């Protein structure tokens, strides 16, 4: 049972382009949505996260858009650079507000390649 669906599986953009990665979730109890960046042979690194009480969050060149009614959220990378080439994972978590134990449920990942 895949609770977080991520697309596309892979993406190639030119330098300066704006890759967009989409995720959809099923469980309305999720209340925290982080994005992670992973380089080959490394652990995932937290990029940016959003709570469902806001529709957009920006940190540097990274922006999350959140649509609570559609149960979808997406990552936009502005002015993409070759150094952004990595695998990106969306994730979801519940219990942020309730103080209960909570695991991260990950999407299947998007392999991004930024070409010169």
């Amino acid at each position, binding site marked *: 049972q895949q609770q977080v669906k991520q697309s596309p599986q892979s993406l190639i953009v030119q330098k300066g382009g704006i890759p967009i990665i989409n995720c959809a979730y099923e469980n309305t109890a999720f209340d925290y949505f982080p994005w992670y960046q992973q380089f080959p042979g490394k652990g995932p690194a*937290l990029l940016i996260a959003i709570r469902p009480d806001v529709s957009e969050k920006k940190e540097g060149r990274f922006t999350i858009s959140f649509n609570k009614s559609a149960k979808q959220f997406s990552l936009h990378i502005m002015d993409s650079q070759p150094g952004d080439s990595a695998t990106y994972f969306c994730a979801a978590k519940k219990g942020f507000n309730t103080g209960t134990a909570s695991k991260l449920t990950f999407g299947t990942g998007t392999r991004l390649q930024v070409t010169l």
Partner: protein
Amino acid sequence: DAGVTQSPTHLIKTRGQQVTLRCSPKSGHDTVSWYQQALGQGPQFIFQYYEEEERQRGNFPDRFSGHQFPNYSSELNVNALLLGDSALYLCASSFSLYEQYFGPGTRLTVT
């Protein structure tokens, strides 16, 4: 400030053997979660430890067990290794329920 550290970096074991992986959380963090990441897949939650107790568990068999020590460090033990256990094992630490920060992982190969 050291981040999450894991040891060993790589490990090769034979089917049927047992393995122990170790994790030291980021300074100030009290919660450790373990994930298994198969090649080309997203991390899958194994279990989470808080105050030396297993607080939540994913869909993994009892062959997977863990421990958290008073200094918040943690171990993951896997018994009776199967070929399918070959994966990158990730440890993530957090302060209580907040953001989880991942270590570099331990690459386990079962032959």
